[in-house]
């Protein structure tokens, strides 16, 4: 079972439907977590949401508790939540992307995805990761083809994955495939 933690976003149920392609999904608000179901889940997903990761200490607590014990996936705010917990700094960016389709690129040979592959994705983010960023076992594996902003992280050792863009958006090409690959990793 996949447990999705909803940060009260208006895209979360797209995420739920996308993951339901592959497994049973339970989804609750971040402030109404069902501990029992969370413990039983195989995968935890941090949803997109408004604001910044520091506004969601409960989600940070969940991350720290289950890191290395379950597969963890973060989307948009969820991606930033993981980085925030790994001592990354999340900052405002000059150019803001809301409802924006843009090209991104796989930038690492260690990625589950083929290096140098380019594809279109949907983006909804005000904030971004400040670089340089370094954390043990983590690698930035995708970037915006134009601005070079970090678009994905992978930690294949502890099975932690995050996307700054929205795989569930209708603006993203092959979003289902992306999730399928991560879930079977």
């Amino acid at each position, binding site marked *: 079972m996949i447990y999705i933690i909803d940060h009260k976003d*208006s895209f979360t149920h797209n995420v739920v439907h996308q993951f339901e392609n592959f497994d049973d999904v339970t989804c609750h608000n971040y402030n109404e977590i069902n501990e029992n179901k969370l413990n039983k889940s195989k995968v935890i997903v941090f949803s997109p949401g408004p604001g910044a990761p520091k506004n969601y200490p409960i989600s940070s607590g969940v991350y720290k508790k289950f890191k290395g014990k379950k597969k963890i996936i973060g989307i948009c705010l969820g991606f930033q939540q993981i980085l925030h917990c790994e001592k990354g700094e999340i900052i405002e960016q000059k150019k803001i992307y809301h*409802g*924006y389709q843009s090209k991104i690129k796989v930038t690492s040979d260690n990625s589950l995805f083929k290096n140098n592959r380019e594809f279109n994705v949907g983006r*909804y983010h005000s904030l971004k990761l400040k670089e340089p960023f370094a954390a043990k076992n983590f690698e930035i594996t995708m970037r915006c083809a134009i601005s070079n902003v970090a678009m994905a992280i992978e930690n294949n050792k502890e099975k932690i994955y995050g996307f700054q863009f929205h795989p569930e*958006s209708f603006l993203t090409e092959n979003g289902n495939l992306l999730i399928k690959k991560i879930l079977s990793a």
Partner: protein
Amino acid sequence: MTKINYLKEIAESKKPFIIYKTKKGFDLFTDFSKKVILTNKNIQSFINKISKNKLRRKTTDLFIGFFGYEILNNLIGVKIKKQKGLKFPKGIFYKPETKIKLANKLNYKSSKLIKSNKIFKVNLNKNSYEDIFNKFKKKIKSGETYQIKICTKYKNNSKIDALDFFCRLTKSNMAPEAFMIKDKYYSIISCSPENLINKKNDIITTKPIAGTLKKTKKLNKIKALAFFKKNIKESKEHNMIVDMERSDLSRICEAGSVKILKKKIVEEYKDLYHYVSLIGGKLKNNISSLDIIKAMMPGGSVIGCPKISTLNLLNAQEKESRNIYTGSFGYIKYNGDMRFNIIIRSILNYKNNSEISVASGVVIDSNAKHEFNENYIKAKALIDLYK
């Protein structure tokens, strides 16, 4: 009794009545046997009870009316502090016993001449609009909202002939979700273009509008589409609404069933082009009318995104009740089918006070002056009815 005279007769009879646009013409509902005034306490049981009524296989097996903005917030757990305003009911529904089909051309002339006051006061001037605008822009930069709609309200004190207003409005601005309500102490006249819920059996669709272009002689449908596609701001706003409505539908629909049925097309109306999408899905088993209403209302395209956080920002800002504005009008049938619009482009006249609310969106690249003027243009079609 011919149908043309019918409008005159019903206006003179002083009976409450409702008119709602259909595909080919209008439906008129009257002879109300029940009238339910909604409160935060009774709304859930009211909605739940509708499907428990005995089916009599009549076209009047339904409740028709509206939900105001505040009651819809309350329904999804978003609280609003006490606001100023008209003290108008939060929602009213009627059980009609008569339904009459009317042709697309409504003919009615008021027998008495009612002179309505033309002068309106606006509750936000350009400067205070700009202040709010800049405040919300900061909230976009910090990621608390991605898109938010600032509401301005035009008000005056005026007696109106609601039916006369509605007939003239449908001539100047025919809209697919147009409706009017005439009751003793209030009337609503609306040329809403936007359908929020169309539910038949287990299929539900929603048809958000994001993007409006005024018609000119040089424009046609193809050029309008090219304009919307080229305009990055309009495209981004539209994309956001499409993903948000997909998500709202996904709450109540079977996994994998939510589809964009019409993606970013242009629809042509008398004076405008709208950039619209049609999104639909197959409802899960055991989804109630209340579940549907809570998932879809208040309609996202007129609020902003993400819905909850944006509603909280709006409610902290707005000192005055929105009343019907950005609520929903429509009906729920005894068999569970329903149709609801989003209440925009509407006049509320209550105890001879008129209000017209309009809103336009703040996204990161919008301009305060442009949006303030846009608001006025939206209100003007309605203000022009006063003469």
